């Protein structure tokens, strides 16, 4: 079965806790495109991302999504695990091997988010922004993913972190990747489409 190269969301209806959040929403995203979701709290940005990821079943409508990677609210990091252990696990989980002159995908991922000096820290010692950086670095290890779903990717990041994120997203899109981000803060991504969800 060939994987779809684009994201197609048609006539979507979503609810959470019995309350309808969205109705009749359609999204079409082609390779290289980005979509920024905005809107007040509680309008369904997170639920929409989770539905596209397949974590929540929609009430109505169809979602045809390419292989994707999801950056949720939680960083999915364990306080006792070191940064290098966390990133090594993510790399192994997605079938990477390193060493033997192949280069080290783990260090590439950490470098991309400016974390190379933190490898031996435990995740419990990291600041909120550094944890976010690590979670974003982990996303890049899912090489098969053609779509990144990011929930508030930049909220705890400093200016440098946002710049690194913007670079990473630009690179990913140049390679044909698609990105959907829900955000309250300006991301500064070039020519991204915008979708405002209203209550």
């Amino acid at each position, binding site marked *: 079965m060939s994987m779809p190269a684009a994201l197609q969301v048609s006539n979507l209806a979503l609810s959470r806790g019995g309350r309808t959040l969205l109705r009749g929403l359609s999204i079409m995203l082609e390779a290289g495109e980005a979509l920024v979701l905005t809107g007040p709290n509680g309008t369904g940005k997170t639920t929409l991302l989770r539905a596209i990821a397949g974590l929540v079943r929609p009430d109505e409508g169809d979602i045809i999504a390419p292989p994707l990677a999801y950056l949720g609210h939680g960083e*999915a990091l364990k306080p006792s695990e070191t940064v290098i252990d966390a990133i090594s696990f993510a790399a192994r989980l997605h079938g990477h091997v390193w060493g033997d002159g192949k280069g080290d995908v783990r260090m590439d991922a950490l470098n991309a988010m400016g974390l190379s000096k933190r490898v031996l820290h435990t995740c419990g010692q990291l600041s909120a922004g550094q944890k976010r950086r690590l979670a974003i670095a982990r996303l890049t290890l899912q090489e098969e993913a053609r779509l990144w779903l990011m929930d508030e990717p930049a909220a705890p990041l400093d200016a440098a972190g946002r710049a690194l994120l913007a670079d990473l997203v630009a690179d990913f899109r140049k390679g044909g990747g698609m990105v959907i981000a829900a955000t309250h803060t300006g991301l500064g991504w070039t020519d991204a489409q915008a979708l405002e969800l209203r209550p």
Partner: protein
Amino acid sequence: MKALRAVFVREWRLASAGGGGPAGPAAFMLAALALVPLAIGPDPDILRAAAPGVIAFAALLASLQGAERMFGDDLSDGTLELYALSPVSLTALSAIKAAAYVSAVLWPAPVIGFVAAMAYGMDGPSAGALSLGLVLALPGLALVSGFAGALAAGVKRAGLLIALIAAPLQVPLLVFVAGVGRAALEGTGLAGANLMLAGAFSLAALALAPFGMAAALKGRLE
């Protein structure tokens, strides 16, 4: 296969170091077994007769100690979402979690059970048989605890819910393990049958519980 091994290694490490490891359940079991003689008195015949049941009961309660942490943290910190979207299925994850729980957290139970059986006045072979019964029962205890932990993940007062769900389901194991010790002690020749029943329960739990856990986790994620 590599991904499964990576998950097991990580879960084993987290279970043995990150969340307290074997110390909590082991201390609980030791404390329970040290207190019982104070409650029922020093009569050696009564203690010896009570030993199999008391030890199996203590192991059952100890297995519930870490059940809340098995999935609770993973749900709240986003780890479960990561796993749900990874190449590893939630069913495989559940089986791996239970295996890590047995090998990283519950492993002292048969050792403590053996020492306690000797201290309660059981003879060596009977204590050994009871300890073997605990070894065979541990996977079942862990899987049932894990199932309860998955159902209660993210729920307020998860500990209460876990005890109420898991304890009735663990009754057969309690009966079989205690039965092993009692049969060995009394020489009824039924110790082997009880051992096989304890092992069979664990195998049945292995075949069923991971699917139940995965379904429960999926529901918790929605």
